């Protein structure tokens, strides 16, 4: 091999190698949150079941405090609907269109999205606006009289 060709190959190859070592390692550590996925305690208490009245839709708060998250985002609002004594539905406040916070209107018994006119019925079904699916529902269970939700049962940004 000619000296010139060899040196050219070495310069190109060497640069590519250095670039790859730095670039790839930085990229991999940068996307670590996706590699790690959603781990940690998934069940969070919402409060004692009896504070959620049958036939009502009420605001409740998930506390993320056990992860050592600082204020103010350690608290996340949700809505709890108890259609019957046996049944509890926990809705995310996140509009399924673009994530604006839906608000419960006890008068009309609808959820309104303040951004683009999304309206959801009491059972979370879409009634109007751009959302293309119903409100996200958390998986929930009752343990020793306390209503708990699985925070990983809805999309991570919901």
């Amino acid at each position, binding site marked *: 091999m000619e000296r010139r060709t060899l040196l050219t190959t070495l310069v190109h190859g060497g640069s590519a190698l250095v670039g790859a070592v730095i670039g790839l390692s930085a990229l991999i550590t*940068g*996307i670590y*949150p*996706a590699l*790690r*996925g*959603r*781990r*940690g305690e998934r069940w969070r208490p919402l409060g004692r079941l009896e504070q959620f009245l049958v036939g009502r839709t009420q605001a409740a*708060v998930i506390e*993320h405090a056990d*992860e050592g*998250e*600082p*204020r*103010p*985002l350690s*608290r*996340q*609002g949700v809505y709890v609907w108890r259609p019957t004594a046996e049944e509890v539905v926990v809705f995310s*406040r*996140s509009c399924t*269109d*673009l*994530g*604006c*916070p839906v*608000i*419960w*209107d*006890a*008068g*009309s*018994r*609808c959820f*309104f*999205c*303040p*951004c*683009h*006119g999304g*309206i959801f*019925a*009491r059972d979370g079904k*879409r*009634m*109007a*606006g*751009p*959302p*293309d699916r119903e409100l996200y529902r958390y998986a929930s269970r009752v343990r020793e009289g306390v209503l708990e939700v699985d*925070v*990983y049962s809805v*999309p*991570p*940004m919901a």
Partner: protein
Amino acid sequence: MAGERLKEIAEWALDRFAVKPIEKSLMDRRVAKGAWYYGDGAALFLLFNVLLFTGAFLSLSYNPSMEGAYPSVRYITDNQTLGWFVRGLHYWSAGLMVVMLVFHLFRQILAGGYKSPREGTWLIGVLLFFAVIATSLLGYVLRWDERAIYGLRVALNLLYRVPLIGESLVLVVQGGPHIGSQTLPRIYAVHVIFVPLLLLALIGYHMYLVVMHGITGPTERTRPVASSEEQRRLYKADALSEERGETFFPYTAAKSGAMAGVVFLVVLVLTLVLGPGRLYPEANLVEPSFPVEEWWWSWYSALAALLPPRLATAFYLGFPVVLFLFLVALPFLDRSPRRGLRNRPVAVAFVSICVIAILSLSSLRARSPWTAFPRAEPPPVPDGVVLSPQAEQGRHLFAQFGCNSCHPIDGHGAQFARDLAATRNVLSHAEFRRYILDPPEAIAMPSYAGRLTDEELNRIVDFLMHVQITRHR
């Protein structure tokens, strides 16, 4: 004697710092004359520098932690001497940069500025466009108020719709399974390190290409140019000619600088009159909130509201991708030899439609007739209407049962549903009752069957009967 010595020192410095070659090849070069609005590039360059400078000084006091971010922005705005002013300059420069960027883009489409041999200049420009648009969102997320967190959540919801890797993208941006302590440092890093470095490199390269390939000159604008060789010949003739060309410094620099100066003046006036971007309550996920995007996103927000749900995902993901592909492909699709806006009716029509659409969608967003929201206050009694005691009870029930969350009365209240003081056909008592108990399927109105007593229903209808013809009187 001293004068001689000073001159010598100056000569020495110019030589040792190799200033002369730059002066000769940049400042003293002959260029084709451009119109006054060719200063939009210089304006963008100035705004970028204002943003770099003010941003650097804001970052001295900004705290990119979830707990500290909002208080630090408040501190900069309320306590630091001239903090509000520097933040205001940063905010308005960012907004005007988006405006000028769109202006710059449209101007190049109008004139055919992407035609050979300037395809490279254009493609770098397309990358710049997307980088600036992206960072214009990240910047206001750093304020960490309610507008910030819901702006971020909109971006996350868009990313979530990406097929296959949507959830991973959300996790990468959030820095974890929910918006938490890892989120803000990431946004901060991208806004103050990644994007500015990228912009610096790309802007430098873009300007180098502008120097190498020039601007769309006077002759090019008037006659068809078939090849890059022909363009280069014409440009050179323009640049060297007495009436169609000029020396870059100070003539072109002064002209472009004048426009940049005017744009900066606008930034200054807006900062002094309106102050920095409004701070909403601190970011939280508990309080009811009425988030609104920054004004340069209004048109997009209006589009989002008007879309049928079936198209939502296709639009949210498709729009930026199609826009990117369209802009990248434009120089290769448009092979006509005609340049200059007078010779390009299709481009003029296209840009006019875009401008009209952006302005009318933004104005629609400002009115937002599509949002319903709970209101505790009953609607005021329309002028000239006297309510019976029963109808007055109905007016309060109208609010109690959330009718006024959607229906305005004589223009007062949410504009989501029909104004009941201006019904198209006058309804009878019985018709109103039927409608409330059993609304048509296609209407986004809940049925009140089983919720209202007969008495309550009659009172509400009494109220409606009183007001329904207000507008027709």
